[in-house]
């Protein structure tokens, strides 16, 4: 069936053109979800394999969130297989953050006195990686993958209102950790550093 083979080749080429430009985006999300680089690479590979298989039924709305949603499912499936429900765990919205983040219970200085400390990229990456799910996912989809709230809602399978509250929680947790982490002297509210 040379015709079929050609059609498949053609499909693979179209898929390659459409999907490969987002490889860095998919890999970045994988790094934040899977934490390890080898695990992330395997997840990305599996994601592209699945995406190609389902490219026939792909209807949009956009390639990037579609790929990221597939990647998220690959990671969820992998955590389920390992018996950890890392992604599926959904903390109730009103649960105090301190329960999941004991390391942030004793801030070294009161966050109220610090507007925002300067941090380098590596520190920020580490702080984001330490956020619990699903807040980590929300902030990465927003700040790293640069999706709109609507697209984040599609990827995470939750309403836009939930995306909003998750981002608020994620940034609050991040701000506390951010100001506690070692870094340059804080920028104070008055704008004058000692």
């Amino acid at each position: 069936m040379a015709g079929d083979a050609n059609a498949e080749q053609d499909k693979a080429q179209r898929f390659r053109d459409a999907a490969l430009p987002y490889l860095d985006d998919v890999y970045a999300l994988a790094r934040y979800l899977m934490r390890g680089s080898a695990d992330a690479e395997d997840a990305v590979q599996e994601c592209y394999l699945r995406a190609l298989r389902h490219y026939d039924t792909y209807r949009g709305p956009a390639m990037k969130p579609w790929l990221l949603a597939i990647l998220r499912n690959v990671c969820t499936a992998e955590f389920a297989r390992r018996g950890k429900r890392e992604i599926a765990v959904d903390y109730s919205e009103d649960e105090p953050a301190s329960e999941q983040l004991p390391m942030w219970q004793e801030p070294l200085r009161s966050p109220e006195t610090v507007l925002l400390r300067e941090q380098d990229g590596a520190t920020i990456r580490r702080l984001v990686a330490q956020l619990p799910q699903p807040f980590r996912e929300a902030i990465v989809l927003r700040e790293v993958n640069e999706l709109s709230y609507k697209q984040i809602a599609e990827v995470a399978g939750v309403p836009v209102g939930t995306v909003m509250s998750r981002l608020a929680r994620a940034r609050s947790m991040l701000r506390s950790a951010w100001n506690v982490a070692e870094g340059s002297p804080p920028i104070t509210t008055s704008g004058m550093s000692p």
Partner: protein
Amino acid sequence: MNCAECEILLHPLIDGELDAFHARDVEAHVATCAGCAEKLKAFRAMREAMAGADLKFAAPASLRNRIEAALPSPSAEIIAPRKFFQPARRSFFGGFAMGSALSAAIAATLVIGVFRIDQNQQVADEVVSAHIRSLQAGHLMDVETSDQHTVKPWFDGRLDLAPPVIDLTAEGFTLLGGRLDYIDGEPVGSIVYQRRKHLINLFVAQRLGAKHAGALTESIQGYNVRHWSEQGLDFWAVSDLAGDELGEFVQKISAAVHPSGSS
């Protein structure tokens, strides 16, 4: 607006995702609240710091090559998971790959399902979000009155359409008032009713569900949603009221909207 509401809504404000209507509320609150003003400043600084920092990870060339090599395979059967993964590698997804193609198919179908959401479904989600926002923000009503003859003219000049405002107090649904809301970037009228402790938002718009004239009944995040179209208008009723009671509400509104009954 209080601080708790502001703390959530300042994020969509920073991200440019808040409609002008709510943005004005947040800014008004921030102007009078030093605590929230500082938070806004700090989160804006954080956003800028994150945008300026390199938070991305570039895919290694070896990964790109592996995927490139695997892609042009002529058929789905040949790109079997066993072949796709390099056997010598610590088989991270090995259990999965060997397990079954069936579970792969199911998992992938779930993904695809997310993207089959038709426009009605997206609007339904937005309608529920708008309902939740209206409860959270203490911003249930712009015009607070049980008098339908006050609510109806209030919408004049605020909307291109005249939402029917029907008083169902006698039938157990108390008219509380009206509100201007935004769904999918479009201004919509919301008429607020109450049954016992349950609030109902009745959203009325010109054409939210686009060509979908079909009625819709479903439950999203624990809220019951009914959608129907009538007289060239789109109606969305959202409430935590039980499905059958919301159905009763919809029937009564629908009956009153019909041309025979004019106000």
